[in-house]
């Protein structure tokens, strides 16, 4: 079961994600530099957080033009599970794989804090082990993390069950308190909070079990466990 971790210049959560995938959940993870192509036999792709290209112009916008994104798009069309976390989410949005945009936080500051999420869609490859409306304590760390869509798109997102995670409280002013969304098919998921920072009890001051289900969901989807 191969999971690709895409590394862009400026990615900085790639090593954390790799550690969690391999050491905590026993995935066969591989790094893929943004100029390389993804192998055909890959089972899932993760775009980790960081500051690709130093967030120049706008977070994620340059990385969205990296050569590897073409492969990610192909994988997305094939229905392969793809997760973008933080900057990875921004890149997925900028490359058109997910709807909406990510704006500067309402506070205009970078925010690093623990938040609570509610699972709004438990049908995706990354949420299938959650009960609907389950709560996840999880940290955020971003400057441009305010998810925004216009009212019509929001209606569509709701209708098509594309809202995956919402914050329990207003955190950064995002539309409808959205923290994560998926594409219409549900295989491409993007989220601002960092699940890789929450799955080990040693560094999670609240409860590491809920966020672990994000990775366990992928294991189930890939048929490793039931």
């Amino acid at each position, binding site marked *: 079961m191969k999971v690709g971790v895409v590394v862009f*210049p400026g990615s*900085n959560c790639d090593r*954390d994600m790799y550690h969690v995938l391999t050491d905590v959940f026993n995935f066969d993870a591989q790094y893929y530099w943004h100029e390389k192509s993804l192998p055909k036999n890959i089972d899932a792709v993760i775009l980790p957080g960081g500051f690709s*290209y*130093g967030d120049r112009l706008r977070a994620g916008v340059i990385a969205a033009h990296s050569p590897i994104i073409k492969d990610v798009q192909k994988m997305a069309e094939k229905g392969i599970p793809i997760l973008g976390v933080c900057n990875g989410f921004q890149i997925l949005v900028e490359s058109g794989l997910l709807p909406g945009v990510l704006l500067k936080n309402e506070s205009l500051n*970078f*925010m*690093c804090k623990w938040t609570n999420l509610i699972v709004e869609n438990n049908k995706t490859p990354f949420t299938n082990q959650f009960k609907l409306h389950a709560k996840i304590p999880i940290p955020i*760390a971003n400057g441009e993390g305010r998810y925004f869509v216009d009212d019509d798109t929001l209606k569509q997102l709701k209708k098509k069950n594309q809202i995956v995670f919402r914050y329990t409280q207003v955190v950064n002013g995002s539309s409808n308190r959205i923290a994560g969304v998926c594409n219409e098919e549900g295989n491409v998921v993007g989220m601002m909070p960092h699940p890789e920072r929450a799955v080990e009890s040693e*560094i999670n001051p609240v409860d590491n079990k809920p966020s672990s289900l994000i990775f366990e969901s992928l294991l189930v989807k890939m048929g490793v466990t039931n």
Partner: protein
Amino acid sequence: MSLEPQELAELKLNIGRDPTSTELQIVAAEWSEHCSYKSSKKHLKMLPMKGPLVIHEKGYDSGVLDVGNGYVVTAHIESHNHPSAVEPYGGAATGVGGVIRDILSAGTRPIAILNGLRFGNIETDKHARWLFKNAVTGIADYGNCLGVPTIGGEVEFDDCYHNYALVDVAAVGFGKKKNLIKNHATNGDLVVLLGGSTGRDGMGGSQFASDSLESEDRSAVQIPDPFIEKLIIEAILEARKQKLINAMKDLGGGGLSCAVSEIANTLEVGIEMDVDMVHTRESNMHPDEIMISESQERMLIITSKTKLKELQKICKKFRISCSVIGHVKSDNQMHVKKGKKTFANLPTDVIVNATLLDLPSKKPVYLKTIEKEKKLRPIFDYSKIMMNFLAAPNIASKIWVYGQYDHEVGIRTVIKPGHDASVLRLDNGKFLSVKIDGNPKQCYINPREGAIGCFEEACRNVVCTGAKPIGMLDHLQFGNPKDPEIFWTFLESLKGLTDFANHFKIPCIGGKVSLYNETPAGPIKPTPLIGVLGLIDKKPLIPQRISDGDCLVIVGDTKDEMGGSEYFEYIHKFIGGKCPSVNFVESKKNMKVVLKVIQSQLLKSVHDCSKGGLAVAISELCMTNQIGCRILLENVPGEKLDVDRILFSESHSRYLLTLDKKNLKKLETMLKKSKVSFKLIGKFRGKKIQFTKGTKSIIDLRVDIAQKTWLNSLKDLVLHG
């Protein structure tokens, strides 16, 4: 800015001729206070630098500690005071960048940043607010982008920093001992400059930093680019993995002048370089400019001819520039050419060995009367005073600051900012606890006791997490050393630190001296900043939630030591009185027993008692746990004191232990046995913070109201004035 007349004469004498203009620039940079430590070097030797865990290697810009199982921790501290006072965003950001490269130059990966920030009075001074806000953003934008967590620090405001800023940054690195760069070079090796281009920014920055701040020389401030720094980190760690680096040095103060001359001198070789080979940001740069530019994000690498191709391949992957600017020779000369023309050719030992000064010192006159207390206005309502106090910039929660720093990236942060010391997990199953502390208010009143106090406080903080202190970083920040009174305060602080380090066997693994911290209004208060690293072999004490019925025990005596306290200075606007002093015997005993009871797992948490005294420390416990507490002031151990002294004295060596009632007997037995001064002083319950003495209520506050004030006041002040 150039050499002093007698320095010029010495240089001429040494080389037997007139120096060229480039030589003058090179030597002026290297002989600046910032690079040469000429005023302080003679005295710094008194600090103990050796210890069982300290690894000494040639040419490291950071200290190295062996943490076992084949792993090392590196650490360093730097400041960027002058630049930050002029351009706080860029100054603070490049301060982070510089210290990170010091960690990198040993071949270790940076895993944490801490910072100590000091500004003028932000309540009354808009400029101080602007400096503060932008320095924080500068650090956040730089550290966050690098993906190195900013795990802790401190922020303080004092009138002595009016129109000025102290921005201190410490960094910690981690790696395998076998991967440490063993700096070496042989004849014919190549000298490579890697990273950002050299431009006209940071011109003469080290000389700028070696004088009082009178002009706003913005061209002396460097421009930050964290993205390039991040690429350099990854490229260098990859090159290290492939063993492509023979020797390495970061370009900091003095730019190429210092990096080239120092690395050559350390490795006892010569270097011949061509400024035409340096990749520059703008055309037509004069050799002098290229040599002294302090453009950021540059590293100097010495590699073998056979390894160059691989190194270039890595640089290409990360799209960072790398230029072969010269080669190693066996003649111990630094030879700077432009094409075929020589611009400088000097023996490296002449460049790097500025004549050290032995400056005169004299006890400042003000110290004669400073300990005398004035009659304070009587306080009738301590609850009201306490609410004002919790909103005071120096007491209020710093969450507005650390909430802007990514303190989780790297997934090592076990104890996060907002507690006493932050704790990182290491790959060998151990934990590293880190804290930095300063206290200019106390150092002003008594430079020796104040400095020792900072050291002890940093130790106390790591002890609170269950860690044994293993190394110290010192950053000594003072005014103009040529003023004998200022130099006396420098020497007193240094002697105090040395005595404490020797007594507690904590080696100094690195440090920095920053002098000439002055504005036209005068010098800053003596501001030594101490960083302490502690190691936890098994399990850190992660503060557990305090619940109803839990007990509060204090270890250590509360003394009549109000000088330099927040209470005197903020509430009574009085600078003076006797400042707290550390009793080494008592300090050691308390430290030892606290570590022992932490190991026996009897406690829920340990909290250090420092700024704001007992009243603030206990309130912090209540506010972070959202629980009330009833404290009997008559039970607080120590001499018999008035209520305000018990509440607000900042005596050292005190720890607040919280625990489940069922463990109280066991704890008391252990504490009794070790003969430390201790007492059960309170019980947690309800929703109010209540200090009483006898039957009299002294402070009575609702936890939720207190918490709101404490959490929000700094943010409100910065954003809305």
